[in-house]
């Protein structure tokens, strides 16, 4: 620690920090544009010039390291004169279009020019003009003349996003921010560039011209689209969500937000929103009053329970449902005598049930990942499944974290991967088993060598590993490796409430049926909460067949979806922006939120709908006044951390018998993960949301006599689809990569297993 003085204030600060960091820590504001605490130092805007004793000229506070006894003046005549000079230069080419600029009211340049700018300009000459750029459906670069070339967006891409998609081309007065050959910015974190841009050059395309920042009400909320639990602010006007911005939380999302969380709101108020309860009578849908619909639903359930037996009832929820919703759903089912309730819709191996000592979770805190020195990631489309967490890992890699990957595809993670093993899905267990043996034998090379040499080791199982048909074996092996390396192991949760589902007990007990068996042995009645089975289930074919053959299907959904085909009652419920609720993030953090806007039309929060259903069905203990009471009952006053435990016993790891034929590898593309995201038009216009392709090794394509780009017919179970194929020589042989969760592939069967591809 060293002592410095800023504006006469004594400050003790760390050696090696910069003047601006020390000042900010002491609460002294220094004007700046290009400096950002999460980005590298560029020192190119010069706005942060300050006077330093004994220095002959003003120094940039962002790039000046502190030295013992340094005396800094941020508001001395010299400093202010320098800052005003810089401001005048910055404004020379900046258009005076604040009244029509989206950034107006929340613009760093606007604020600073009030403090440091002149009342009029001495500049008489023509201002420079920079042409607009089209960099994709999310970020608008329409008014690049406003750019002050701070290069925050460029550094964000290089350092946080992992790919330099924007750069500063040309030089001096011709310098402009652009992408390579008019390409789009495809990063799953691109929206953060909008936040970073200190002026109105990069703005939010979907939010353009919608509202002024001072007209918006802000409500704290929690990300509903991935398991990190990112803190966010929902900005609303006239009872409508107009945009979503991050709220800084250093332990979770830092100051970032994924594009999925940022732009999903565009899918909230779409044409197909369900705003009135509907029932199907004589094959025709009609809108009815809530009372009628609820009684109809209750009667349907009661009829099946009394007639065929309660075990004929099944309930399914998505992992993105709130804790309260899932708790009431399982309470309703159990109150009626059925144990068939589950939220793990894409899971295919449930053999860990009953052998697992607690709710599966990350196994360590998110912040601990930054402190780990060795990481083994098994079966994860990391960058697309957990964008912000991947950014955190990327930063840790730069500080020395070694990441190893065992997976069935080799996508660019845009970070340095120390070791990797890319194998077919059926070889995943064997590969991990070999690593476990090598770790036990203290081998010094490869993945095992990396893990053995670490002090803070973590093994994380991704979505793909959790959905894998031998998930329990992978979990057991991960446990072995973690034990042998004195490390931690856990799961990168798939959905916002993947931990919450277990805490809410929305999983079957010993007698109950899990999500897969409820579909394999169809029930007579189903209750679906937020579920779009053709997209959310591990095996859409089977799921749709089961639902179509059921006597009664009660759908609680925010949207009129395919349920119109198979449901009997549609109950309009509120998405996360319109209801209060709780998500338990993958690290076990319990975060409650309130509704940001009123439910649309006659939609109601699902916990209220389930409460009334409970009352109508005369199930005990359904008198809740608020969602908080439901939450408290679900949590039972115990700290959630006690219930989190990944330990597993009694699972035998078996040598794999290789299946004949091509094996399917499925990712759930980033913008098809849940109902809201699927409806967000801007997200659906991104490159990530393009129609899925069939990816195979080029030799495999040769074997079936097709060339990359041609259409192929893919068949699985009773369905087949025609899609274009592409060669990916990084895929293992014998593997077909084809996305799940997308309408174009919904006709296919299970996410894993054999699949046939032939010439179309």
């Amino acid at each position, binding site marked *: 620690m060293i002592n410095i003085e800023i504006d006469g204030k004594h400050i003790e600060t760390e050696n090696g920090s910069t003047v601006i960091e020390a000042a900010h820590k002491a609460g002294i504001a220094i004007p700046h544009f290009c400096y950002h605490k999460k980005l590298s130092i560029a020192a190119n805007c010069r706005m942060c010039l300050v006077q330093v004793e004994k220095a002959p000229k003003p120094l940039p506070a962002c790039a000046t390291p502190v030295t013992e006894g340094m005396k800094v003046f941020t508001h001395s005549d010299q400093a202010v004169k320098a800052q005003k000079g810089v401001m005048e230069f910055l404004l020379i080419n900046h258009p005076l279009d604040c009244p029509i600029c989206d950034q107006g009211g929340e613009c760093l340049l606007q604020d600073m020019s009030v403090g440091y700018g002149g009342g009029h300009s001495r500049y008489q000459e023509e201002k420079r003009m920079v042409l607009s750029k089209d960099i994709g459906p999310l970020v608008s670069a329409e008014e690049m003349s406003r750019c002050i070339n701070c290069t925050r967006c460029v550094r964000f*891409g*290089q350092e946080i996003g992992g*790919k*330099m*998609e*924007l*750069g*500063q*081309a*040309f*030089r001096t007065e011709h310098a402009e921010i652009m*992408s*390579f*050959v008019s390409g789009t910015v495809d990063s799953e974190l691109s929206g953060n560039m909008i936040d970073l841009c200190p002026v109105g050059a990069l703005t939010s395309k979907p939010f353009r011209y919608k509202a002024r920042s001072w007209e918006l009400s802000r409500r704290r909320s929690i990300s509903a689209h991935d398991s990190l639990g990112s803190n966010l602010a929902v900005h609303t006007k006239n009872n409508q969500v107009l945009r979503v911005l991050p709220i800084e939380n250093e332990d979770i999302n830092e100051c970032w937000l994924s594009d999925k969380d940022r732009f999903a709101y565009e899918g909230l108020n779409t044409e197909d929103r369900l705003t009135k309860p509907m029932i199907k009578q004589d094959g025709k849908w009609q809108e009815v009053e809530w009372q009628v619909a609820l009684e109809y639903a209750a009667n349907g359930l009661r009829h099946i329970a009394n007639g065929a037996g309660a075990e004929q009832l099944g309930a399914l929820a998505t992992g993105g449902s709130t804790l309260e919703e899932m708790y009431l759903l399982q309470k309703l089912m159990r109150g009626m005598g059925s144990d068939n309730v589950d939220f793990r819709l894409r899971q295919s191996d449930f053999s860990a049930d009953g052998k697992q000592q607690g709710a599966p979770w990350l196994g360590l805190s998110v912040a601990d990942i930054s402190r780990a020195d060795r990481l083994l990631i098994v079966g994860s489309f990391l960058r697309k499944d957990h964008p912000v967490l991947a950014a955190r890992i990327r930063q840790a890699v730069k500080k020395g974290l070694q990441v190893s990957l065992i997976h069935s595809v080799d996508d660019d993670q845009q970070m340095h991967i120390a070791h990797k093993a890319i194998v077919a899905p059926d070889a995943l267990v064997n590969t991990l088993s070999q690593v476990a043996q090598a770790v036990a034998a203290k081998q010094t090379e490869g993945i095992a060598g990396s893990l053995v040499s670490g002090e803070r080791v973590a093994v994380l199982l991704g979505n793909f590993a959790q959905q894998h048909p031998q998930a329990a074996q992978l979990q057991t092996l991960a446990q072995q490796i973690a034990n042998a390396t004195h490390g931690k192991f856990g799961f990168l949760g798939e959905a916002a409430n993947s931990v919450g589902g277990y805490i809410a007990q929305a999983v079957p007990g010993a007698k109950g049926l899990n999500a897969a068996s409820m579909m394999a042995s169809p029930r007579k009645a189903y209750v679906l909460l937020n579920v779009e089975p053709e997209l959310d289930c591990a095996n859409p074919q089977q799921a749709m067949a089961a639902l179509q053959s059921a006597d009664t299907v009660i759908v609680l959904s925010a949207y009129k979806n395919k349920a119109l085909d198979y449901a009997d009652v549609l109950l309009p419920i509120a998405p996360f922006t319109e209801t209060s609720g709780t998500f338990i993030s993958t690290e076990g953090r319990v975060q409650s939120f309130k509704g940001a806007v009123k439910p649309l039309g006659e939609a109601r929060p699902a916990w209220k709908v389930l409460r009334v259903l409970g009352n109508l069905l005369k199930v005990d203990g359904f008198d809740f006044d608020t969602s908080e009471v439901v939450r408290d009952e679900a949590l039972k006053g115990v700290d959630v951390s006690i219930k989190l435990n990944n330990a597993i016993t009694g699972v035998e790891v078996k040598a794999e018998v290789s299946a004949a034929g091509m094996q399917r590898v499925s990712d759930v593309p980033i913008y098809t993960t849940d109902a809201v995201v699927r409806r967000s038009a801007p997200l659906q216009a991104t490159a990530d949301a393009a129609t899925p392709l069939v990816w195979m090794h080029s030799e495999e394509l040769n074997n079936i006599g097709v060339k990359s780009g041609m259409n192929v017919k893919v068949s699985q179970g009773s369905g087949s689809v025609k899609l274009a194929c592409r060669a990916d020589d990084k895929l293992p042989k014998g593997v077909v990569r084809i996305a799940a969760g997308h309408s174009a592939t919904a006709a296919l069967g299970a996410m894993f297993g054999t699949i046939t591809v032939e010439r179309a």
Partner: protein
Amino acid sequence: MLSQQVTTLIDKELKKYPADQRQSAVMAALRFVQDEKGLITPDDMADVAAYLGMQQMAVYEVATFYHMYNLKPMGKHTLTVCTNLSCTLCGSGDTVAYLEKKLGIKMGEVTADGKFGLREGECMGACIDAPLLTLNNKKMCGKLTTAKIDKILADLEGGKA
């Protein structure tokens, strides 16, 4: 795709830098491409990026920053006339006017037959010879007079340059 000759030259250049600093060779690599093709297209930049393990945009930044890289065809013989202060004081304005008249093109243009390109340049650090121009960024011709320019152009026409 980069040609065999270009990659050989880049490999030689790479030996000057540490193995994990391949991007240090980017300027040389772009120069080799330009020497071979006369210009650097975005495809070439992407190829250089792939070869050196760089981000494409980072190569683009370099290629657009330095004006000696041709982003469009600049003719078989590119004449770069210095128009900075010393040369201007020594009459580079006349040099430019004479060249423009003689070749029938303006600054930044290429003759219809694709033989000559005329371009404005920055100080070449040889003001003692002002006014001056460079031929294809390689050969410097100083103390220009109309007679000298005529000779240079005639030599180039005759393939003697």
